[in-house]
């Protein structure tokens, strides 16, 4: 079997490789990406603690996957539509989705937090792989519109085993859809390692479907950025769909309900901690002197403020109105639902009346 080498631009030693793309690496780019990652990590960590304090029902951490997300979303146009999975907080933040919108779903006050049209960023999809077909369909619309948008769709290694994910790969290849499938291969699907998920590397499977493929070190934000840019521009030029597999690691449990010590070792975690994507870029910044004290202090302050805002916004999220669930069942309206809303409102009011009377 042919072996594929992983594309790396910023090595684990914090130094740029001699790949030609190194020429495009500017101090500004590095600082921007570093800022995105640091802020994302802060929001993620705050959310984790908010869950522990009972303020959120659940949280799925993006910890460790910042480079894969930030590197990829910063490589496409802000106008390019994105179909995320559910752990893509760093990408969401890059699209201007704030803590309030990000946390609403996990606090249980709404089923989704933001306007997909406004941010060109779909709502999270919890049913694994379902969003990949939506992305392909959207890309078929792009084709029909004659637009040069490229659609980016995130998914996980585990999700790739779903039939629907594979239908999406095949469909995209068949209709030559302008879509980039971006897999964050974080080595685990809850407790299931990739070795029990597939029998051959995903990027190789993707090539078999006829997709252009890239295998990239997902903890190398510059590499992810360069590889995604390359893939996206080829798609934009009409080269047909692509799949990027970014090798990364889920540093936290699957979710705040998970206990990863049941299925993986501390040594494995240590191995990956040494490959932390934020530290790696920081090493480059330090080495080159591209991040001065003022920049770092400002970023610290910005992160602190964002952390405070995350806590505030979370706690301030209002409980939904009891009848909100009746509001958007069918856009055309439903007499069944209307009857139930009215009856339930009257029922609730009867308790208030009873309380009133009891006074």
């Amino acid at each position: 079997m042919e072996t594929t080498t992983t594309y790396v631009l910023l090595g684990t030693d914090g130094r740029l490789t001699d790949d030609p793309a190194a020429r495009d690496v500017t101090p500004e780019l590095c600082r921007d990406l570093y800022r995105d990652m640091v802020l994302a990590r802060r929001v993620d960590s705050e959310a984790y603690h908010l869950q522990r304090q009972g303020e959120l029902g659940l949280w799925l951490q993006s910890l460790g996957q910042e480079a894969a997300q930030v590197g990829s979303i910063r490589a496409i146009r802000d106008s390019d539509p994105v179909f995320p999975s559910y752990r893509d907080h760093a990408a969401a933040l890059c699209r201007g989705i704030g803590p309030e919108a990000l946390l609403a779903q996990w606090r249980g006050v709404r089923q989704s937090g933001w306007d997909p049209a406004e941010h060109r960023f779909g709502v999270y999809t919890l049913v694994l792989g379902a969003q990949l077909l939506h992305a392909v369909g959207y890309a078929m619309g792009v084709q029909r519109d004659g637009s040069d948008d490229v659609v980016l769709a995130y998914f996980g290694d585990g999700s790739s085993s779903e039939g629907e994910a594979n239908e999406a790969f095949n469909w995209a290849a068949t209709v030559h859809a302008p879509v980039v499938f971006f897999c964050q291969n974080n080595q685990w699907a809850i407790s299931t390692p990739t070795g029990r998920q597939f029998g051959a590397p995903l990027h190789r499977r993707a090539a078999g479907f006829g997709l252009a493929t890239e295998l990239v070190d997902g903890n190398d934000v510059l590499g992810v950025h360069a590889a995604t840019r390359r893939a996206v521009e080829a798609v934009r030029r009409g080269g047909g769909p692509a799949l990027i597999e970014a090798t990364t690691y889920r540093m936290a449990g699957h979710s705040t309900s998970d206990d990863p010590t049941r299925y993986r070792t501390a040594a494995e975690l240590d191995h990956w901690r040494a490959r932390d994507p934020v530290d790696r870029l920081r090493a480059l910044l330090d080495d080159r002197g591209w991040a001065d004290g003022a920049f770092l202090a400002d970023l610290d302050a910005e992160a602190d403020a964002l952390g405070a805002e995350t806590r505030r916004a979370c706690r301030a999220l209002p409980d939904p109105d009891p009848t909100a669930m009746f509001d958007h069942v069918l856009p055309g309206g439903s007499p069944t639902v209307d009857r139930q809303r009215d009856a339930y409102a009257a029922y609730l009011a009867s308790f208030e009346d009873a309380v009133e009377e009891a006074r």
Partner: protein
Amino acid sequence: MTTTLSRAITTALHHALESDPSVLVMGQDVGALGGVFRVTDGLQKDFGPERVVDTPIAEAGIVGTAIGLAQRGYRPVCEIQFDGFVYPAFNQITSQLAKIHARTAGRITLPVVIRIPVSGGIGAVEHHSESNEAYFAHTAGLRVVTAATPQDAHWLLRQAIESEDPVVFFEPKCRYWSKGEVADEPDLPLDAARVVRPGTDLTLLTWGSMVETCLAAAAAAEEEGHDLEVVDLRSLSPMDVDALTAAVDRTGRAVVVHEAPTFGGLGGEVAATLAERCFDRLEAPVRRVGGFDVPYPAARLEAHYRPDLDRVLDAVDRTLAY
């Protein structure tokens, strides 16, 4: 215009494609072949392969990409080749198509129509004769309709395509070749039941493939001096319960007839609703006549499986005699 039910659908699709450039027709073999029932015959010739789209054999893919297309502003009309082949798309239909509008608090609307030839009566092999409307009617966030005449097939489909709702549109395949008038205007809204035959002694409530059977039963009963009313539900979800209730309040007796397996079928919903709402008016229990609770049998047995005139009359007689 007099035409077949199948042709009434074709012309509805033609009209939709012509009047709204965002409408797409997509499915397996809908292009050059015109679909296995020729319902999409000629459409690809007139509108090209980008608007009348032959898809890979992937039902989840059909519905999933339709959802994406709808998010981009298109109005896909999907065809599932046969009732028994919609299940691979069940996940996309129930968890995505039905829920995305609610999940996004109304920010995303998905005007997707899924056309499904449904029910038996054509001597088909297994998986080609399922009456599976109950699965979809029980799924909040979907509109489910079915037509029994060319008029309803044409206008319900046009109304379904124009609606912003996700609609599952069932076409009783044994009625594809039946003829009838199609008027220049719809005469009922998308979610209204239709009294197809007024009557005073008992109300038959039915839909899709069984409407004709119930009309035949009513005609036969007339010869025996019984005046049966026949109501075609048309909209299975939301259901026009006010119309159904009014009908049964008038006659005081009701029999629900559908082709799907009886247990857990939509007839239970109809009967339970009427038994509750018309409690004081009912002079006899609401009976249900449906398919048996067995997998749809081999073709040579389908005449036994599907409710027919005699089985309907048997229930009618027992209800009248109660």
